[in-house]
């Protein structure tokens, strides 16, 4: 597939790779706008998982037989692909995890647990997903460190001045979302990282929503850690990535103990394996990892520039049309924004919209989107959220807005 950055994206060809989209839900053609929760998987990913179990299934690494070699190669090739995908220095800096949540917990436990002392501070923003709040609350409680929150403005943007004011020599860790799953805000993480580093703080970026939409270059960002999930970027569920700088990964203790992560074990002393294996205790999700490789190939075959170009057009069209609806209240109007629209409609509960849209075959998400403190910031119980992916069409956006408008009339 050869595509340039123009409006001639072959959506028909792309959609053919997603059989799940070709179905009726409740008597209507499915419109899937819940991509920020999870994307659908192209045939190549599904086929690879099936192929792996059909042809190569074996436990990886120490096996000396052919299947173990093949499985290990498939697994380790993905590590190399991911290192290239996010421009890491080396594949050893790529740790496979269960997902973004698991990656953040690893950093909170291993870095936070070894670094934080009473009175030290961890900074997160007001727009974090619960998975980038609770692990820090847990480790702060354990170490007596203090969790501080960087405020945001009414557009849903980080107040950078406030962030700078919060930084001090007590700041040991900054953990921030790259793209907000609720607001769509794209945070200026490069500037955040540079500012935090001036104070000697380590920085983790939650890239769960960023990797499907934007080119990530961890070297250029100079982040210490970068976490993301496979399933939000057309890959399988249950597999995620933690990128970490070699020096840090070598310095911090393991997260979990078990097979694979050790060098020598005795009842008196255990020594740990080298990175990345030090952080990969137990048999990993091998099929998921090999599937993730195909997801990366899929993304690269289209190109992240092309993907974000298309999604931005969907976002613009949807935002323009939704703004025409009386009482439309968008939440998150940042100048730098990814393809997520969170909104409320005056006089209508988002839950009702979600239920009735589902009856029309349209899948959106309603509720607090695992960002309850953000809901408190905007003084709302929840929102309706539509989020777009490469396979979504303008016709789907038009249909969504049309159905939504008629439902609102009925509900008012």
């Amino acid at each position, binding site marked *: 597939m050869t595509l340039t950055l123009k409006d001639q994206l072959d959506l028909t060809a792309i959609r053919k790779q997603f059989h799940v989209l070709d179905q009726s839900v409740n008597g209507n053609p499915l419109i899937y706008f819940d991509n920020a929760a999870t994307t659908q998987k192209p045939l190549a990913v599904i086929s690879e998982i099936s192929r792996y179990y059909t042809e190569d299934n074996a436990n990886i690494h120490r096996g000396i037989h052919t299947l173990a070699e093949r499985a290990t190669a498939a697994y380790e090739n993905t590590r190399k692909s991911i290192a290239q995908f996010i421009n890491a220095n080396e594949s050893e800096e790529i740790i496979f995890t269960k997902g973004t949540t698991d990656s953040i917990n690893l950093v909170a436990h291993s870095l936070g647990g070894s670094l934080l002392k009473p009175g030290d501070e961890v900074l997160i923003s007001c727009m974090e997903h619960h998975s980038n709040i609770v692990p820090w609350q847990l480790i702060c409680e354990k170490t007596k460190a203090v969790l501080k929150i960087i405020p945001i403005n009414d557009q849903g943007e980080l107040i950078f001045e406030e962030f700078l004011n919060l930084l001090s020599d007590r700041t040991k860790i900054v953990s921030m979302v790259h793209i907000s799953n609720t607001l769509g805000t794209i945070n200026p993480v490069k500037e955040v990282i540079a500012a935090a580093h001036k104070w000697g703080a380590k920085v983790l970026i939650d890239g769960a929503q960023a990797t499907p939409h934007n080119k990530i270059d961890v070297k250029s960002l100079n982040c210490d850690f970068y976490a993301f999930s496979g399933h939000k970027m057309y890959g399988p569920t249950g597999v995620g990535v933690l990128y970490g700088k070699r020096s840090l990964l070598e310095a911090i203790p393991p997260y979990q103990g078990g097979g694979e992560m050790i060098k020598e074990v005795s009842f008196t002393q255990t020594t740990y394996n080298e990175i990345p294996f030090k952080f990969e205790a137990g048999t990993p999700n091998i099929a998921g990892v090999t599937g993730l490789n195909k997801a990366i190939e899929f993304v690269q075959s289209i190109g992240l520039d092309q993907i974000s170009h298309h999604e931005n057009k969907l976002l613009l069209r949807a935002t323009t049309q939704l703004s025409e609806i009386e009482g439309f209240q968008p939440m998150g109007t940042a100048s730098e924004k990814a393809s997520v629209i969170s909104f409320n409609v005056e006089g209508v*509960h988002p*839950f009702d919209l979600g239920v*009735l849209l589902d*009856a029309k075959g349209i899948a959106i998400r309603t509720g607090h989107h695992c960002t309850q403190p953000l809901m408190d910031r905007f003084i709302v119980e929840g929102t309706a959220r539509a989020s777009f992916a490469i396979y979504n069409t303008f016709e789907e956006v038009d249909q969504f807005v049309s159905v939504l408008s008629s439902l609102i009339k009925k509900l008012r």
Partner: protein
Amino acid sequence: MSIKVRQEEIIEEFGLLDGDLEMSINYLIELGDQLAPFPVNNKIDDFIVKGCQSKVWLFAQEEDQRVIFHADSNTVVTKGLVSLLVRVLSGHRAEEILNEDIYFPDKIGMGRFIGSQRSNGFSAMIKQMKLYALAINIKDKK
């Protein structure tokens, strides 16, 4: 009309909708509209049923040895759901409410058309109504 008869009535009504999701939800919304107004003073946190994405207020009072339920919700779909329970259980003796099996949700395929999360919320409503009945029953026996 007994709890059982009221359940059979609901089963019959939803049977006419032939499992159509949109029609079932629209019907639920209509039923919710018919729910008696909820006393404004009772819209307090103490009467909120936990476990729902939406808010449900529910309280009971005893009149002539019958339990009268009052309910409301901030979403029209959930208001329809709780209205079904009020219709089935309100106006009966506490002991009857405690002893009767609530089987109509399964019979009308509610899990299929309201989803598992809303089913959990619905179960929480039933549990709360039975707890009200239990409290009234204990009070009556003293």
